[in-house]
């Protein structure tokens, strides 16, 4: 549906679907309540290679194309958006390494992930969310080392990460041009994670603060030149936003599947509610939102694959899919009536999960800033 996939990808998709149906979908209900990070599910998923879909072939990965990745990610998000977030976040952290890293750094980071590791992308700070350039984390050069101090917050995968991509100011006077990115191993002295977030949704994904106290890293851990950190982070987000959109599409598809199944069995006034035009049209509108969002993701991927500019389209894909996922989840709740509002049924969770897609990797206001800047230009 939506994607035109090769036979090989269809085959992989069938395996991912089977795994998600058997190991994720139902199991995540209990973890959604407890907020526990389901290690045993993740162990199996990592073993299957679901956390390393984007590792390039030359670094030992499977060399999957972007559209195939999207199809597999959507299937994961359909089962549980927290599961999707955990799996994709390591790939998010890998992107800056692939964009700006040395051969050695790329090889090292890919190896860590292929051996079953996790990674975190640490940009957000208490005083620097949408305004990422207002970073207070500093990196001071001291001989062959940098000394990093500061705090990152809302960092996905932080408590389980084997490496962290950390942005820090090497020269505050230069604004965004004074930001530098580093590739930091979890064993580095002075690095700690704290303040586990008790979240509204995507509760199977773990989020916490990362603190750096006189953390010394070698110069060789710097990603690219001094002052390129902000650009690297923005390039990373440009690329990853489309895949955040894909996750939101997964939520929409699940909401539609649940609503359709329910509408065929729930009888009111002597008929299944799916026989009423009011419900049918709601389902049609949900499908319109889902399929158009999916196509926007496909379009952004097409542009990436063809080496064309995609920043605006990637922002549209994320923003549009995120906004619509919230609405479609609400509609699914409406179709299930009182049962939709009950935690016994799966759709209220979809709403809680969908909401994050309007917030992380740049709020949807920030996406609109990116889009309008592209459309209006400088004047």
């Amino acid at each position: 549906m939506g994607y035109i996939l090769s036979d090989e990808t269809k085959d992989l998709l069938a395996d991912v679907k089977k795994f998600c149906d058997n190991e994720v979908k139902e199991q995540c209900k209990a973890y959604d309540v407890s907020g526990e990070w389901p290690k045993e599910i993740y162990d199996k998923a990592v073993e299957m290679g679901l956390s390393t879909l984007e590792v390039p072939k030359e670094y030992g990965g499977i060399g999957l194309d972007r559209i195939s990745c999207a199809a597999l990610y959507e299937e994961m998000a359909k089962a549980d958006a927290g599961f999707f977030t955990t799996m994709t976040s390591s790939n998010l952290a890998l992107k800056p390494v692939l964009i700006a890293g040395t051969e050695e750094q790329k090889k090292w980071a890919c190896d860590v992930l292929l051996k079953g590791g996790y990674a975190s992308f640490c940009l957000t700070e208490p005083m620097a969310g949408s305004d990422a350039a207002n970073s207070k984390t500093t990196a001071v050069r001291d001989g062959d080392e940098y000394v990093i101090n500061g705090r990152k917050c809302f960092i996905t995968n932080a408590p389980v990460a084997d490496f962290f991509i950390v942005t820090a100011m090497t020269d505050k006077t230069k604004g965004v041009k004074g930001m530098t990115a580093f590739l930091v191993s979890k064993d580095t002295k002075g690095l700690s994670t704290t303040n586990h977030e008790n979240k509204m949704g995507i509760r199977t994904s773990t989020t916490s603060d990362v603190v750096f106290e006189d953390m010394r890293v070698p110069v060789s851990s710097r990603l690219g030149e001094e002052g390129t950190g902000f650009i690297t982070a923005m390039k990373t987000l440009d690329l990853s936003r489309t895949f955040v959109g894909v996750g939101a599409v997964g939520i929409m598809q699940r909401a539609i599947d649940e609503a359709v199944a329910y509408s065929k069995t729930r009888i009111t006034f002597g008929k299944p509610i799916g026989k009423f035009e009011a419900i049918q049209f709601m389902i049609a509108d949900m499908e319109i939102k889902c399929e158009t969002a999916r196509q926007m993701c496909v379009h952004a991927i097409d542009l990436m694959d063809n080496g064309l500019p995609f920043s605006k389209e990637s922002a549209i894909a994320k923003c549009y899919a995120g906004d619509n996922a919230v609405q479609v989840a609400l509609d699914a709740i409406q179709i299930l009536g009182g049962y939709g509002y009950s935690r016994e049924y799966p759709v209220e969770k979809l709403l809680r999960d969908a909401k994050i897609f309007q917030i992380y990797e740049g709020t949807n206001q920030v996406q609109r800033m990116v889009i309008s800047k592209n459309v209006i230009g400088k004047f």
Partner: protein
Amino acid sequence: MEILVCVKQVPDDSVKVVLNGSGQPAIDKIAPVANAFDTYALEMAARFKEANGGTITAVSIGPDEFKTSLKNCLAVGADKAYVVTDASYDGSDSLATAYVLSKAVAKIEELEGVKFDIIFCGKETTDSTTALVGPELAEKLGVGVVTCVTELALNGDKIDAKQETEEGYNTIEVAMPAVLTINKPHYDPRYPTMKSKMAARRKQIPTLTSADLGTDASLVGAANSAVKTISLSEPTKKQAGIKINEKTFEETFAKAMAVMTEAKIF
């Protein structure tokens, strides 16, 4: 250790099969999968190989489409696979199938220059559920067989197989080569990794025909099978059960006992 695993592709057993207008099972729209017991057999074989070393070959008798299941086998432990395809085998009963398999064993041994130490079969297939092919294959090969195996361990040049029975378990020592038919163990078959799946898709699966196997045409196919299917019927529908779910386990148990006593089940 040279291991052969016999695999049949069957209609997905989680889908209910009904009869079509001409009294045949309507299975054309049901996704084909590897027989569940064969997947248990392959998983057990893969674990055995991991513990003791060796090579696993998977073999399937059936049309070219059976390669789909064999590719899945190649992604979860099998090193090689063969499909045995011949129109003359269509409609073979279990005995004729076992005969063809025995010839396939000999042919693959010749092609690979090996002798199989253990031949794994599923306990039965989920489509025809005869549970006959494994023991019949052992008979044709003139080797020992242990059925309904749920665990096995290498014991010198023999195998200790744990056999599940109606009452409990037997531990049976069997000399190799041997045929083992596998029941559901306490673990599930592994999932293919994305990498193993992609590699498996690229592997070649050679096809063997009656000419390769040298099978006797008078022993195979529907016409030469001892078992003839006269007609098929759907299983009678189960009556709707009752759900007993009291507050505590004790209350649930007491209620269930009361219901069964009243129904004079005891």
